[in-house]
């Protein structure tokens, strides 16, 4: 019903922040394929927060309750090993992390630390659940995207090791 943006004569009434947020989310692999109407509804549920370099978004073992999307800056995903923190991946604008919190109640499997000044979008699990209850299309698209990301991760690492190996690898869903 509201697939189209506001008509031109109503442009003065448009909220620039919402207009910016929905297309930005559309570029994220996790939300790719969602129609504009659902993206707009999803976008209103996000909180935004400014982070400074070195700040820890969450630590390995923390309870996972939210998904994060990088708007600006870089976020390092690390895992503790006997040799110290091991950088699994560095994420940039458009990348999402902590997505497994949306589907299970397991603690975080890695640590996320902000590497450069940045802004993150935060989506709380219950907000996502409420949206899915009201619209199964969101659930279908996001879970399909998540399965795709998990499949890519599984092909890269067929056996899940308890500690990261010495070779280069990328972080899977957290």
């Amino acid at each position: 019903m509201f697939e189209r943006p506001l008509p031109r004569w109503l442009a003065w009434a448009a909220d620039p922040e919402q207009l910016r947020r929905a297309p930005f989310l559309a570029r994220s692999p996790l939300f790719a394929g969602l129609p504009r109407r659902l993206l707009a509804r999803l976008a209103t549920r996000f909180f935004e927060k400014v982070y400074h370099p070195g700040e820890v978004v969450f630590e390995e073992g923390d309870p996972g309750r939210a998904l994060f999307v990088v708007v600006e800056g870089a976020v390092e995903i690390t895992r503790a090993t006997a040799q110290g923190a091991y950088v699994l991946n560095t994420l940039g604008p458009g990348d999402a992390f902590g997505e497994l919190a949306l589907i299970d109640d397991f603690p975080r499997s890695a640590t996320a630390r902000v590497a450069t000044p940045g802004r993150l979008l935060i989506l709380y699990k219950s907000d996502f659940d409420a949206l899915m209850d009201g619209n199964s299309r969101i659930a279908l698209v996001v879970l399909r995207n998540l399965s795709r990301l998990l499949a890519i991760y599984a092909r890269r690492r067929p056996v899940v090791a308890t500690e990261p190996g010495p070779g280069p690898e990328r972080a899977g869903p957290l």
Partner: protein
Amino acid sequence: MKPGRLLAWGGLAALVWLARGLVFPLCLAAALAYLLSPAVAWADALAIRRSVAVSALFAVIIAVLAVAGFLLGPGMLAEAAALVDRLPALARQIDVGLDAVVRELAESAPALRRLLPEGGDWVQRFVLNRGPGEPGDLFEHVGHLFLLAILVPFFAFFLLRDMHRLIAVAMDRLPPQHVETSVAVWRELNGVIGRYIRGLVLDGLVVGALAALGLWAARVPYPLLLGAFAGLANAVPFVGPLLSAAAAGLVVVLTPGQGLAGVGRVALLFLVIKVLDDTVIQPFTIGRSVHLHPALLLGSVVVGSHALGVLGMIIAVPVATVLQETARLLLEHRRVLARRDLRLRPERPVV
């Protein structure tokens, strides 16, 4: 603590103390904002600027209230005027009835005479010796209501328009390690309070409409006033439905020609409404927002009534639910962190 900061905190405390009269209007404004927030969220999803959306919403509400006032106002005013006209006669009738009961009690049980109240015309003195005798009080009450009618929508407008900005400022000041739990607690509480308030209002509207229709069908006088009272009183758990049934019963008793059959009809009507409310209406309106054990629910209402009277009874259930949800989230957080500290790694997700 530095003297400057101490002074600032002291100043803030003094300001809060001076503005304590605003707490009640602010609570009502917050309730109104919660009631209207789904419409604003809908406008957000259409990428409509908050100020435009909230202004348009208030314009629509004013228009709806004007139409409702035009349609229902004359009827309610006529009922209220008729009630005011009949008030002296009604008070006299009740006093005569009460006198007879007291006399009867005193004659049948002389031992109780000491305990029974002396004098008479209690209701007439209570009802009739007020308003006109104390015009200052009357003006004060009207002024207070007028101020509430202005302040509540005013605060609600700005809460709806600027709350997201306040939350953004608070988020940026939160230490990163507390963000996830804070967002979780805020969202859960926001959801519980919002659903409860919207459910309560919807429930009150349905119950009020059913009561008004039922009373009108039973030919009880003042159906609109009594229906409105039933809808409002429904916000008070346990006691509210009893009060509205008692008020309607009293009107029936004092109406010539209604008799005991009329009282029976009214009692049956309110019983049916209560059963319908508990089994059909409430599960659809507030059922999903409250997950309190019945004993805890009753306990919270009793504590609320002792602390804040009727207002305490109304807010007891959401406050108890909020405390329960907060405790659940914080305990869960603590449990997971304790497990992590003990290095009891959970099983990894199957990939």
